[in-house]
């Protein structure tokens, strides 16, 4: 986080000059996505992602939340409209590595590589010498509570631990923007709750900006500062919920009446968002 440009450093401890306006990290400007077969995965969407926020995309299947995330990740191009990343792209990053990290649905680890090599992959690909990457890998693993697992292979770890490795790999580049596509969807609820708490603590501690896709209402309410509810056919933004619950959030928030209210509200919105489509499992 040390090398942040002062313009984006509004959420950083190192912020020296506080700029008057908060430039957004990503602006989605009327971007839509129509796939080759003609299905409109995403109708034109406008969305600004502010630094330091935890934004969650939630909605029924086919609402384009993954498509929107991939657009933000620059994994796919919009059919029309455009996206703007800080000062025209995240290529010019200098020595401090990339600014964008993506955590997939699966841990997506290289089974042939030890945990340390898996975590250091983004640094290795960027040509960071191992003398520099080693302490960063160790630090990232420590952050996710996996010290001492450097020399294990992915298959020796549980599903939850593999997901932690995946997050460590995302953190090792010191990203400004962390994109996560249903990262804990395949885990049991207990593990998921623990990882949610850890992720939230990490986000708060490191002043990250997160865009998170989930199916879980509880996860969305617990984690987010802003929840974007999306509707399907065509995929579009249906409603936005701001959650100003102070940080750090803990079990107390999970068990509070407010949490239950927010979940009920979000659930109602999701039900509305799902209405037009005839086949739809209840969330």
């Amino acid at each position, binding site marked *: 986080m040390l090398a942040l440009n002062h313009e984006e450093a509004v959420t950083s401890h190192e912020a020296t000059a506080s700029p008057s306006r908060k430039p957004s990290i990503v602006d989605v400007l009327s971007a839509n996505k129509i796939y080759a077969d003609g299905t409109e995965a995403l109708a034109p969407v406008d969305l600004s992602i502010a630094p330091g926020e935890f934004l969650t995309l939630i909605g029924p299947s086919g609402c384009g939340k993954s498509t929107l995330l991939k657009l933000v990740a620059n994994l796919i191009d919009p059919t029309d409209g455009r996206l703007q990343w800080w000062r025209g792209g995240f290529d010019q990053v200098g020595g401090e590595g*990339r600014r964008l990290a*993506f955590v997939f649905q699966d841990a*997506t680890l290289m089974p*042939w590589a030890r945990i340390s090599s898996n975590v250091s992959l983004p640094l*290795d*690909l960027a040509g960071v010498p191992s003398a520099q990457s080693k302490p960063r890998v160790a630090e990232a693993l420590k952050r996710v509570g996996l010290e001492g697992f450097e020399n294990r292979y992915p*298959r020796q770890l549980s599903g939850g631990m593999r997901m932690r490795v995946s997050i460590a790999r995302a953190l090792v580049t010191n990203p400004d923007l962390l994109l996560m596509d249903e990262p804990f969807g395949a885990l049991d609820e207990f593990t998921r709750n623990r990882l949610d708490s850890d992720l939230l603590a990490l986000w708060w501690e490191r002043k990250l900006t997160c865009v998170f896709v989930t199916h879980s209402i509880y996860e969305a309410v617990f984690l987010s500062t802003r929840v974007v509810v999306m509707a399907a056919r065509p995929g579009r933004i249906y409603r936005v919920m701001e959650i100003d619950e102070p940080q750090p959030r803990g079990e107390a928030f999970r068990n509070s009446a407010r949490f239950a209210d927010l979940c009920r509200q979000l659930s109602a919105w999701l039900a509305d968002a799902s209405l037009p489509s005839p086949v739809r499992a209840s969330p």
Partner: protein
Amino acid sequence: MKPLMESERFVRLAAPILVGAFLIGGWELACRHWQVPVFLFPKPSDIARSLMNDAPTLLGALWVTMRITFQAFLCAVVLGTLIAFLFVQSRFLEISLFPYAVLLQVTPVVAVAPLIIILVKNTQAALTVCATLVALFPMISNTTIGLRSVDQGLANLFRMNRAGRTATLLRLRIPSALPFFFAGLRISSGLALIGAVVAEFVAGTGGRGSGLAYEILQSGFQLDIPRMFAALFLIAFAGVSLFLLMAWLSKLALGGWHESEVAREA
């Protein structure tokens, strides 16, 4: 100390050896009991004696066959891997060449061998070419499948990290291909031996530098059946050794991570 019967390693070794000893013992006893003539079906002791007496010739023949096998195997591995890389680099190349690779595979080597022996002047080289033809296809197809079977998520990850072609090849494609490559090695090594022996049969080359197949043919002509069995035993032994060598290599390379080679945990 725990009883030997509970040791996995001991059972793994002892059980097959016991079966082998039982079979050979039964064979020996049956031949003695019914007094089967040695030119019809020799006793194991006859075969062992023949193996001892003819050791210099037989081992020499084994060496010749193994040399051809290894040369052919090496050619198949190098060629097959190169072709696989070409196929993966260019879809057009694969589409245009793959049918011919299949053609190579489905044409029986026995049928092609005479032609090759006529075309290639040096007999040793001709035999190597025949054996290579047999061993080549598994290397091509396995390595191609391996190089293609890259996890899509990992491929995306590499793309997002702006990995170059070389880095992707070295860090992603080749490691992904290794299990398939080693499976190819196991098949191909056995086929190289089979190809070498079949080609020797067809060529029927005698004199200096003749292989085990020639020894078998000669023993047949001379009704020296124990010697025939001894040569057969050597071929089988060579095949098993090759297989074990490949299995060991595969374990060495994949032992740490691939499901097929990881020791079962209780």
